[in-house]
């Protein structure tokens, strides 16, 4: 997704404004000139200046590029599905892994992505479950990471 320079610039200025708004209530350090607000304020000032330059450059060029340019892959269903599986799939994994457990979430995430990437159908469940088991073994047994069991708590080893 490509954003036009004036959109980028306006976005940066708005973001800088949000930072200024957020730090307005930060306390000042007694006896010192600098409080915790100074550093974020400097960053926000920098972002606002950069944003302004983007907007000025864009107006000078007066180029007729659209505000937002959608990438080529947006028209390819398989690529869109791939993007959706990685982003939404990971989000779902992140939200549900504690309750459902690694052995439910990991094969589902893997399987969905393998399927979207057109890996041969019969190998999808084999790789999804097999690879999840191997990674579980490495991290859980080998490195001692407490990967959540979730639903399968009673089966935990």
């Amino acid at each position, binding site marked *: *997704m490509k954003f036009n320079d004036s959109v980028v610039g306006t976005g940066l200025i708005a973001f800088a404004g949000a930072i200024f708004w*957020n730090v307005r209530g*930060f306390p000042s350090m007694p006896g010192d000139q600098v409080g915790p607000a100074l*550093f974020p304020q400097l960053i926000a000032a920098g972002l606002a200046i950069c944003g302004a330059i983007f907007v000025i450059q864009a107006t000078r060029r007066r180029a007729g590029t659209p505000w937002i340019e959608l990438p080529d*892959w947006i028209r390819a269903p398989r690529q869109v599905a791939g993007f959706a*599986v990685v982003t939404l799939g990971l989000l779902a994994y*992140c939200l549900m892994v504690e309750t459902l457990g690694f052995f439910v979430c990991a094969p589902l995430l893997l399987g969905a992505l*393998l399927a979207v990437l057109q890996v041969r159908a019969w190998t999808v469940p084999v790789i999804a479950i097999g690879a999840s088991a191997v990674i579980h073994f490495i991290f859980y047994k080998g490195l001692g990471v407490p990967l959540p069991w979730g639903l399968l708590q009673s089966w935990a080893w």
Partner: protein
Amino acid sequence: MEHLVQAFGLVFEPYVLMVIGASALYGLFVGAIPGLTATMATALLVPVTFFMPPVPAVAAIVTATAMAIFSGDIPGALLRIPGTPASAAYCDEAYAMTQKGQAETVLGAGLVFSVIGGIFGTIVLVTAAPALADVALNFSSFEYFWLVLLGLTCAIFIASKNVLKAFVSLLIGLLIAAVGMENPAAFPRFSFDEPNLMGGISLIPMMVGLFAVSEVLRYVTSIERPLRLAQEKFGSIFKGQWALVRQYPVQTLRGSALGTLIGALPGAGADIAAWMSYAMSKKFSKQPEKFGTGHVEGVIESGAANNSALSGAWIPALVFGIPGDSITAIAIGVLYLKNMNPGPMIFIDNPQNIYAVFIVFFLANLMMLPLGVLAIKTYKQVLKVPRAVLMPLILLFCTVGAFAINNSAFDIGVMLAFGVLAFVMEENGFPVAPVILGAVLGRMLEENFVTSLIKADGHFVAFFNRPIAGVLALITVAVWISPLVILWWRRRVRAVTA
């Protein structure tokens, strides 16, 4: 001397040697697969190294990256696709040589001059780092403030095509560093009452997102074409290499030296070193017209440069805690996790660990010769690994790795957020490296700034009073105003000629 013996003991231990061997094969593999970069190799290694003692952890990163930067040359020469961005500069040249039937020569040159460049960079690292550390012992917050600022300045003014976009990236990185309570006032900033954000954004999940998840996203949204090898069987790789070493000594030395220097500059790593060396090689060549037609000279110079840059990047990383490139930025994150905080004191407190890292550098570069030949000869098989299977596995590995650092599912969300951020940024031409530099150096910058300001009691002149601080300040300001001077100069020249 006693520390050196200890260092050898630390490295030549079965466990460490096994880690080095495994990371070497891993690095060769990752570098040789188009779409997987050396930085990604490092990011994926971190969750595993997290559970190792410091020496094998650093050894794994050093070895894997050295191998990956070399093996990135292989798909460049055989598929016309650089395996890592560091091979992009001479990819077309290398492919042209393959088409002329000189695949062995160009792959051999890639290997031999990678090793020479790597060893050159390591020698500079071994000699320069302890000497610089001695100087750095006298540094106060003023010097550190300017040094960090100079580093960040180099990262945006020298290392990037678009200064404005790089600056925005850097500011985003600095803002990330500001999240949480880890600031001089210990006041929670931008944590939005989320307990997971009180300690700040964890660097490792963030880096895995920036450098690995973004690559997975790029892969799934790209339209894959079948890869066709230009040549599958190879004769002797080393045939004729000695003649090349004797024919191009100046180019080798120049590439290695420039590479080390660029590597040591914060923000600029192996890829920029290779581009600059290739351009330099063409400029000083006696046969510049042959460049681009399958001429080995530029490949030699920039092939040496990208490997020497890797070692060079460790100089500021170890001595000042200022990363020379994205890879060392990740490595510094690992060192902090291991309580082996980089800085001049590390050379006094843990010299055996530092020497051990130096030994690993030599070892990794020497191992590259036999393992590199193996990688070239088996490349046809390596390519058979289907990326459609590899990428989902990498994604799951990232997810588990991000979780493993703090055993927290929140970090998976952090990883995802930064993966999407890096993906969108790169689509819009914003470089990602300054984000990581800003995030790693933000706290150091703020801390030294505030400490200095308190010491100076509000008198800003104190920032320039100490001699080294003054010089660093002068250089920093000079780099800032250089674009304006260049602009003014160009206008003047145009006005005179018009």
